[in-house]
């Protein structure tokens, strides 16, 4: 990490943004830990989008994650998404109902707008 930061000083800022959100619920915190250890991301964002859906307040059912990792280099999108799904397979089996994934290499992230749009509006299909 240090050598990378030396080459790209801006990474210091990225590292800050991988710190877990203090207000995050237990599921989000676990997801954060798992994604950090699996992908050693230079940038990681977790957005709990459950509030946009017809679930009780404080739910942890709908998430969007942004994972920027050099591990994604040379891997097609579907493999990157499968890797993230696998890392969070327990959560996806036990209550996390929607997971939107943005998986980029550091290079791709650097040239992108670095802005993440919120997921589309819920249309009432949650649950049965």
């Amino acid at each position: 990490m240090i050598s990378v930061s030396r080459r790209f000083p801006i990474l210091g800022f990225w590292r800050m943004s991988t710190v877990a959100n203090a207000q995050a619920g237990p599921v989000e915190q676990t997801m954060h830990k798992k994604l950090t250890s699996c992908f050693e991301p230079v940038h990681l964002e977790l957005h709990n989008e459950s509030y946009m859906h017809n679930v009780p307040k404080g739910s942890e059912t709908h998430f969007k994650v942004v994972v920027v990792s050099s591990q994604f280099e040379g891997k097609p999108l579907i493999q990157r998404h499968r890797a993230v799904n696998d890392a969070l397979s327990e959560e996806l089996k036990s209550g996390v109902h929607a997971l939107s994934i943005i998986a980029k290499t550091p290079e791709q992230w650097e040239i992108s707008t670095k802005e993440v749009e919120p997921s589309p509006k819920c249309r009432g299909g949650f649950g049965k």
Partner: protein
Amino acid sequence: MSLAVLGRALRHATITNKSIPSLSSLRFYGTEDSRIATMVQNNKVVVFMKGVPAEPRCGFSNAVVQILRMHGVEYDAHDVLSDEKLRQGIKDFSNWPTIPQVFINGEFVGGCDILLQMHQSGDLIEELRKAGISSALLEAASKEKSDSGKSDPK
């Protein structure tokens, strides 16, 4: 073989099946998988979604419908909310935990995020072309070109 003998054999088969529950449940899983295998081959583009294209019941499913509409793609859509077996079965089939799921030429392509990125990068046009589908967006672009005299019409 006379009809009577055939009838007896069939009856016997039915009874045997019923008397072994574990065998029936095995058969059930096999059937669901092969049913889905048939579904994904039934059209060049097949979508498993929440709701129907005219009325998607999930924002992610709606996004997939809108993207395919832009490309003028005709596709089979299956509503997992109206079929509980399919809802779990499709996740097991493609080893993918979420809905919607898009198949092109019988191959699993991805969910909403992947389709959206393929749409933005132009990969979707290429993937459709490989399946023998000419995207409406591509046709619109080449028509524009030919109208302005830069390229000859198709």
